[in-house]
């Protein structure tokens, strides 16, 4: 009869030996080569799935979308900036053509007519006997 021992934190050498026999891993390279092939076979199946292909495109698609959003934001910002600058310029920069010069031709005609009228009237008065 073998007594159960309490050495090594209660480990029983015979039980431990039997445990190792029960849980012994398979020996021989062919077994492990076969297991590796099965593991890689399952991974290849998964890797070739359509959703894996989709997954492969997710990252580039996200990057492209981010670039597009960034470009659109920059374009909008620039457009708004130009609009604001133009508005300021319109307010602050004096108009190249003064208001008087626009009005003057109209006034000039009237004044000319009035002057001719006055001069004509005077000449007519002078000719009268």
């Amino acid at each position, binding site marked *: *009869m*073998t007594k*159960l021992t309490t050495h090594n*934190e*209660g*480990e*029983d050498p*015979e*039980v*431990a030996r*039997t*445990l*190792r*026999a*029960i*849980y012994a*891993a*398979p020996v021989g390279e062919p077994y*492990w080569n076969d*297991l*590796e092939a*099965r*593991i*890689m076979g*399952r*991974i*290849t199946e*998964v*890797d070739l799935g359509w959703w894996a292909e989709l997954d492969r495109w997710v990252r580039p698609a996200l990057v492209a979308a981010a670039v597009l959003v960034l470009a659109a934001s920059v374009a909008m910002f620039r457009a708004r900036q130009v609009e604001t600058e133009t508005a300021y310029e319109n307010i602050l920069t004096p108009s190249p053509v003064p208001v008087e010069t626009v009005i003057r031709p109209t006034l000039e005609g009237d004044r000319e007519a009035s002057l001719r009228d006055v001069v004509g009237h005077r000449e007519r008065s002078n000719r009268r006997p």
Partner: protein
Amino acid sequence: MTVATAVHSTFTMPSPSDGNPRRGSDERALVVSAQQGSSEAFAALVRLHQRRAYAVCRAIVLTHEDAEDAVQEGFLHAFRALDRFLPDQPFGAWLYRIMANASLDLVRRRKVRDADELSESSPAPFRDPGEADELRRRLSQALTRLTDRQRSVIVLHDVEGFTHGEIGSVLGIPEGTARSDLHHARAALRRLLKDVRSDI
């Protein structure tokens, strides 16, 4: 399904790269290469770790066939989660945690299935057809009477030589709990095998 994607432990799990810095850096290079999509690099990682991964899974599940299934599931999970793995971390610790979770998931699924299938009959104890002697037969039976965690802890410690801290990391439990589980597992086995040990 719970799959660990990162292990923040400070110790290094014994792994095929232990004690050899060059092999450690080779492993890191393989991990980086696999993360960039090289299936050859991932195959090399499988080759490097499959024996240890099998041992972890075998400690948790009840049969060799289940251990094979769990190893395949575990590597599949690891492959899917690979881009979330930080290469500075020990790859072995991360991988064995995934293996343990895959095994625990399989044990849970088996329990549900067995409960459905055998609800009318008494559960048949696990019996290794190759067992040669009485102690081996009774030990196999006794192991099915332990809790999943107690069985895993005693096998990982007494068969695979994991330390309490390593067991804690693999199973996601504190080191003290692993130590206490081991103590209770041994006590339970002593109790369950008392009569057979007297007969031998």
